[in-house]
């Protein structure tokens, strides 16, 4: 549905994006992660026709954003950077304004749309009286006005309270599952992204470092806690049992073995055979944040700036 192919962007002498490629299919929620200045917003600006790419192609439902602008952009609903409105007009008037920007769009039930995003009865208030969360909701309502095939949300959870974030998550899931909308979300909130997205791409310094799906992203390790006096012996046992992986000691009494769950019985057997006291054993799932840090650290990325955003 949304295809970004080898997009390259230079601004002056600076290369902002290098060969950025990914696809978002109908019914999928795709996360776009990266620190500030990584190129997320530039990519989104190119997708939404706000900025041309130096090289590469962006298509929406087969229509090229650069050459079939009208067809491509009429299939996109988006919030870029932050939801911006005319503060002196009401929420309803802002939606009417947005309707007028889509050719041939008529008869939209604004009240129903308002109710859908939790703004029922508040559409006639002036936007300057809205809280940030209400503006986010209105922004989503505006992005959905014309039943787009692709929904692009740049930091959509900004300003939303935990209940609002949960509502948004459920609503986006509903849109993806029932309307088949392809959703691209960029965010700093990795824990939120982990809950919402089906797949995600990590971008850093203008390059896609990794595109992962739900299966591969749940990278897991065996975490084992033993008596601290037997730690060295336990590490030797594990190393002998799994000579193809690196055993990592995490603390005085815990170590991890990067192996699947099916290897737990084998590890237990080896440790018990050597009379090592096991206090705890199980799978530890690598969080999105850990994966992100690992990926960007590997190649001298800019994750320090990212951590400060949390």
């Amino acid at each position, binding site marked *: 549905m949304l295809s970004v192919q080898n997009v390259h962007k230079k601004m002056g002498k600076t290369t902002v994006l290098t060969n950025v490629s990914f696809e978002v299919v109908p019914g999928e929620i795709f996360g776009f992660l990266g620190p500030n200045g990584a190129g997320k917003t530039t990519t989104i600006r190119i997708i939404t026709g706000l900025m041309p790419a130096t090289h590469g192609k962006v298509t929406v439902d087969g229509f090229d954003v650069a050459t079939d602008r*009208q*067809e491509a952009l009429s299939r996109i609903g988006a919030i870029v950077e932050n939801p911006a*409105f*005319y503060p002196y007009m009401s929420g309803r008037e802002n939606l009417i*304004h947005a309707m007028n*920007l889509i050719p041939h769009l008529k008869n939209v039930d604004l009240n129903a749309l308002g109710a859908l995003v939790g703004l029922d009865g508040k559409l006639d208030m002036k936007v300057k009286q809205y809280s940030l969360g209400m503006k986010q909701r209105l922004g989503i309502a505006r992005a959905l006005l014309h039943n787009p095939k692709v929904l692009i949300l740049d930091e959509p959870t900004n300003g939303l309270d935990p209940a609002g974030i949960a509502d948004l998550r459920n609503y986006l899931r509903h849109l993806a599952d029932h309307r088949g909308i392809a959703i691209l979300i960029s965010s700093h909130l990795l824990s939120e992204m982990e809950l919402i997205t089906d797949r995600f791409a990590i971008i850093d310094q203008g390059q896609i470092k990794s595109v992962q799906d739900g299966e591969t992203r749940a990278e897991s390790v065996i975490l084992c806690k033993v008596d601290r006096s037997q730690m060295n012996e336990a590490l030797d046992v594990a190393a002998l049992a799994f000579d193809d992986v690196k055993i990592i000691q995490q603390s005085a009494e815990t170590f991890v073995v990067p192996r699947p769950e099916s290897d737990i019985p084998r590890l237990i057997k080896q440790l018990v055979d050597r009379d090592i006291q096991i206090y705890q054993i199980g799978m530890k799932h690598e969080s999105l944040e850990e994966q992100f840090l690992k990926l960007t650290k590997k190649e001298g990325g800019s994750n320090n700036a990212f951590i400060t955003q949390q």
Partner: protein
Amino acid sequence: MRSLLSNEWMKWRRTIKPYIALAMYFAVILLTYIIMISGDGSPEAADFFNYGTMAAIAFLGIFTIVFTAEMIGNELKFDTLKHLLMSPYSRDRILLSKLLMSTFVMFAQFFFILIVAFAFSLTLDGSVTWEVLRTTLLSVTGPIFIIFLTLMFSVVFKSVGVVIGFTVLANFVSGMIGGLLIAWKPEIAKWVVFLHTDLSVYFQEPNIMEMMDVTIWFSIFYVLLHIIAFYVITAFMFRSKTFAE
């Protein structure tokens, strides 16, 4: 295009400024009326119409700068320009809608001034003559020129204040320098476009234009040339700028 114009109209009428402008024109014309009727003798309807509209059109020039500057400036201020540029409509159409609305808004105010001044003139002796009406109608070229100039500055500068400042400065400084040039170097003054923007001068003070050795057709052509150049520059910049923060 109609929906884009409808948007521009909605944004313009929802602010307080249009109503302040209309009240201001009414007040200026009323003030002119009071001053004229409180003097010695009975003023002529034609004289009152001439002075009243002249005074109000001076304000129209200022409000035209403000309204046109805000057409694009407010979109940048509220960060809403990105939504316009993300729409399936081309940037050329969006810019054209802003130009057309600025022009429409200016003409609407201009006709409001004419109607109010005419209504007051009905209470006076005589009637508004064609010569006076012609002079007033020709003075509209100034605000038209201002629209194109302001629109060009709006694409260059982000701040509405800077756009207004530059347009006012360009108008007044060029007018002032032009005035000096008419006296000392009229052959150079004829190339200052700001001295051609008010065509009513040809009927009110024809000797000025004679000094510069120009005709009304030269002025029309010269102003038109500038207007086209301004719009080509504006459209080129509006098409190519990213307007990113």
